[in-house]
């Protein structure tokens, strides 16, 4: 099995490389350029099944074309009646047995990979992160490290990271195509999946199960940094003091405005497990605002003033008094200054 795969792998790696060069989607988003263990497992099976199926297709198409060319009714054949063939035991056996063999070739590695990816032995020795899917954002709670964060998931490269996932409302599905296949995030049970990134990078994550109007905007990022950087990030995050006053006056106003408008009854800064809304501890380092807009003050102000226009159906709309431009501006200033760690998405070389 392995040897057979080995011989063909080279040929198909080459052909796949050509496709990749021809445009295989955006790096760190596409599943066609796998950069993690799960995505590689899937890719191997995708390649194997594509090879088998291409073979079948060529066979079908050849017979089909020859039949069409050779046996098309020709001029002067008006009265011709072909031989009425009932069937052929031999032929029918052939096209029953060969597909069975092909299916077995695909089935064996499929079963092996299925069990491999569901492996939870020694789970507690690895990094465990509790993931909560919410309409329309993701919360990440590092149980052992006592860190809370949202939207940007920091992981070390080359290490197994177990995601224990549950939903707070409807079903979501966590998908980081470049690193791993997807797993549903259900409200009734905890689903576990492990991910492992091979190299540093900021990887796009998506919600893959319809969850409401803003389903398509429920993006997040996986930020894979080196293990050392990851350690650094963890200790930086643990050191955050949510009571710390910002330096400049505008940001201080922003902090006060947040308190006045009860923002912190839903959002937490620091390691508080309060996660009605996204945790804001490292908001200034976030790759995106509202999951998909570029991180800048303008977008953040827009988001604070009218969230509905940016994420239809989000649950923040109407939960707080209408902000003045000034308030929104100062809150934005404060939030963008929340940069507790030197380890940022830039550290992932992206």
């Amino acid at each position: 099995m392995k040897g057979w795969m080995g011989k063909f792998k080279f040929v198909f790696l080459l052909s796949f490389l050509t496709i990749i060069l021809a445009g295989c989607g955006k790096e760190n988003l596409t599943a066609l350029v796998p950069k993690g263990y799960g995505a590689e497992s899937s890719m191997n099976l995708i390649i194997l099944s594509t090879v088998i199926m291409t073979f079948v297709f060529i066979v079908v198409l050849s017979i089909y074309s020859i039949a069409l060319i050779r046996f098309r009714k020709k001029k002067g054949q008006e009265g011709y009646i072909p031989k009425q063939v009932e069937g052929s035991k031999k032929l029918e056996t052939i096209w029953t047995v060969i597909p069975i063999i092909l299916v077995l070739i695909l089935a064996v590695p499929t079963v092996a990979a299925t069990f491999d990816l569901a492996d939870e032995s020694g789970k507690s020795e690895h990094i465990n992160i509790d993931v909560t899917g919410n309409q329309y954002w993701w919360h990440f709670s590092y149980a052992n490290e006592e860190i809370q964060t949202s939207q940007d998931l920091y992981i070390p490269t080359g290490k197994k990271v177990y995601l224990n996932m549950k939903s707070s409302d409807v079903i979501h599905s966590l998908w980081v195509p470049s690193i791993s296949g997807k797993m549903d995030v259900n409200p009734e049970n905890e689903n576990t999946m492990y991910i492992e990134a091979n190299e540093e990078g900021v990887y796009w994550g998506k919600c893959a199960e319809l969850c409401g109007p803003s389903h398509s905007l429920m993006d997040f990022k996986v930020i894979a940094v080196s293990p050392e950087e990851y350690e650094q990030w963890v200790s930086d995050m643990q050191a955050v003091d949510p009571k710390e006053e910002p330096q400049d006056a505008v940001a201080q106003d922003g902090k006060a405005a947040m308190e006045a408008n009860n923002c912190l009854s839903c959002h937490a800064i620091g390691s508080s497990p309060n996660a009605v809304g996204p945790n804001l501890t490292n908001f200034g380092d976030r790759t995106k605002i509202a999951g998909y807009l570029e991180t800048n003050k303008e977008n953040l102000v827009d988001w604070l003033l009218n969230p509905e226009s940016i994420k239809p159906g989000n649950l923040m709309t109407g939960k707080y008094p209408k902000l003045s431009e000034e308030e929104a501006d100062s809150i934005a200033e404060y939030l963008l200054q929340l940069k507790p760690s030197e380890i940022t998405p830039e550290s992932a070389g992206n």
Partner: protein
Amino acid sequence: MSIAAAQKRGFGAFLWDYLTTVDHKKIAHLYLVGGGFFFILGGLEALFIRIQLIAPENDFISAGLYNEMFTMHGTTMIFLAAMPLLLGLMNAVMPLQIGARDVAFPFLNSLGFWLFMFGGILLNCSWFLGGAPDAGWTAYTPLSAVSPTHGVDFYVLGLQISGAGTLMGGINFLATIVTMRAPGMTYMRMPLFTWTTFVTSTLILFAFPALTVGLFLLMFDRMFGSAFFDVALGGNSIIWQHLFWIFAHPEVYILILPVFGVFSEVIPTFSKKRLFGYTSMVFATMLIAFLGFMVWAHHMFTVGLGPVANAIFAIATMAIAVPTGIKIFNWLATMWGGSITINSAMLWSLGFIPSFTIGGMTGIMLASAVADYQYHDSYFVVAHFHYVIVGGVVFGLFAGLHYWWPKMFGRILNEKLGKIGFWLFFIGFHLTFFIQHFLGLMGMPRRYWVFLEDQGLDTGNLVSTIGTFLMAISATIFLINIIYTSVKGEKASADPFDGRSLEWAISSPPPYYNFKQLPLVRGLDPLWVEKMDGKDNLAPAEPLGDIHMPNSSILPFIISFGFFIAGFGFIYQTDHQAWNFAIFIGMGIALGSMLMRSLKDDHGYHISKAELEREAD
């Protein structure tokens, strides 16, 4: 009354005739018109979806409306377009193929149609009454259970009503095929289309109850305060997925098996050869149907059922490749050595083989559970099921319509328009959907209202949208073809295509009693057998005598209308108690009509032997 007499009457009488008809051929017309109407609706919804996705971050339609659009596109196409169109073909052809004068229960046949029609109308009323369903055609709980508008209520009630109609159709066809085959028409002499109708009806019989149960549970959750799917109150939302897919996977085969039957008629006819491997085709059909019930959880690989369940369902799913492969190769072998005529019906069949093969192959790729972790809920899946349902079912419907149009309406569809239509559709179809395999793997999940800029998805989506317009143009050409044909089309003889099965042994369109004398069937492809013996028709199996016919009835229409009214009552009683009256009135009408039907004996009428002899002239 004869057909000519019917044409002389006014529009009112014409309408009344169709509202009350229990004739399987006219009910077929109704199904084709009803299904065709919803096919256009679903097609327009598809166009809106593709226009929205023509460019990144487009704002052609809003997020909520987009969800309604794709929910209704899927629901409409599956339940209100593909299935009724297939039921239309079955109604038109199957009784003729087995040499019967009608289906076993003509009244039930009419009731089945009207329930479907009113269910479909009820569902589409949601567009004008506060919003269509928006939780996807799969209506996964808890999203569907908590959806704030009445949309999902319309989905539940509409599908419940139309589903009851389909179930009746299935039972009716089963009874018909079991009991009403002409003398000599043994099971193993039945044409493949009749066989697939038979197997499909069995699937309907066993699959629809699962949907009915699911819909009832959802209805009680949404309207009467139960908590079957409410996790907070101890319910379980995953159970919906099981119930839904235990129905919906066989549903896919309910759609595809009948068109396998269509191709098994068209390909032999235009290859001038009998179907290669008839017996294995029959058993492959049964095997596909049987396995179809064993594989529902392959839609749920990412739900977290665990590696054992995933592995078992993966292998079971792959197994379906074997009987499906047998079918493909048998069709190829039928063509091999034949004398192939390529006209519109054959073109659609020839287009089907490679298209469906791709769809089947991606099906096997999807069955590989770990690979599916990437494909699942991405555009790869969208591409796959459109290859199966468009490349299979829609191609099959077009093939069947071109093939049996003369039998149904007495005129041959225009060949030129038919061929142009095919090529536009064929090219448009592959343009639209082939690239979606790659879009999915490039990271585009399905049911996305927008895709973002700079994610490498722009070109693919643009190409896909262009393809859709080609298909829309082709559908329009088909409509033009229908109008053109009904005005200027070539009149069809009884047997315009040198057919092989019984439907070609009687005039086009057939008289309302089908066979003056039931034919004596002497083998597989009964008409062909006679032709080879130098005869031009089958010998009768009975002397000419009186024919017993069922009476027309308006009751099926009224019963269905009653359920339609009650549907509104159920939906709106959550807003105000006064709507309970609508439930009582609607159910009163429906149940009252049923009572009337049960108490009043309707013995039908007889066409006298003398009248039949007169019509012969």
